[in-house]
């Protein structure tokens, strides 16, 4: 049990415009709580907009920087957190990616493309993951686009998994995935071009 409770060291990733540093759920909840009242941020993730700080904090696991990471995203030269990238890894080398960009000023500016590339490189390269997956509600078109642009394949659909918080009926959940060798091939193709 000791092995599984041991914490890893903090991790820092850097991209052209951003710095990503691992953080803890208390700080995440504190920084992201103001975003929880915004339906355009919360509904695409399948969350409602009525939260207490305590309940919101409890939606996050304890991040151990070994198998569960949450990176705070800050623009270079700024202390302001604009969002979070998460990796949750199991014992089989599978990891699930999650992202939340709460600062609307960074929407539509390639933020997720840039930060997720660093996270994917870290997951495949440093953590040695074999497979990454992302779960996206069918109505979350921007997130679908982000997975597609990074070469993720649609694996299938969980039918009518969630209530539609922005309208009627229920929504399907789309499963995207990417294998380590697919990402490597994509990176080599990019380098060659």
């Amino acid at each position, binding site marked *: 049990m000791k092995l599984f409770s041991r914490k890893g060291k903090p991790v820092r990733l850097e991209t052209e415009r951003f710095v990503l540093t691992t953080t803890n759920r208390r700080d995440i909840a504190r920084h992201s709580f103001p975003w929880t009242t915004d339906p355009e941020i919360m509904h695409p993730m399948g969350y409602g907009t009525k939260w207490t700080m305590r309940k919101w904090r409890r939606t996050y696991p304890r991040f151990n920087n070994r198998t569960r990471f949450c990176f705070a995203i800050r623009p270079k030269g700024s202390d302001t957190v604009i969002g979070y990238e998460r990796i949750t890894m199991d014992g089989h080398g599978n990891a699930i990616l999650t992202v939340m960009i709460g600062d609307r000023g960074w929407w539509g500016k390639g933020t997720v493309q840039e930060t997720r590339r660093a996270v994917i490189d870290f997951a495949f390269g440093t953590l040695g993951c074999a497979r990454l997956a992302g779960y996206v509600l069918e109505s979350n078109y*921007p997130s679908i*686009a982000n997975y597609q642009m990074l070469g993720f394949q*649609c694996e299938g*659909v969980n039918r009518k998994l969630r209530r539609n918080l922005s309208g009627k009926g229920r929504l399907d959940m789309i499963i995207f995935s990417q294998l380590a060798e697919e990402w490597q091939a994509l990176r080599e193709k990019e380098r060659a071009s």
Partner: protein
Amino acid sequence: MTAIERACSLVAAALDLGPEEVLADGTIGAVRGWDSLGHVKVLIAVEGALGRSLKAQETATIRSVGDIATLLGEPPAP
């Protein structure tokens, strides 16, 4: 007008581009403005052209002009 020509003009109109800026081999991320937010406009335009909402599986597999042409070329559902 062929399905591929319709798909090109649909993407161009959705992204407010000139017709010459969207070619038959255009893909998400490669066509100017076809990014995560541009994709919302493209998918809404596809739904408008089809006259129905996209199914999740369709939404997940549209990543090029060719994919849109395939959808537009399908006969309407009975």
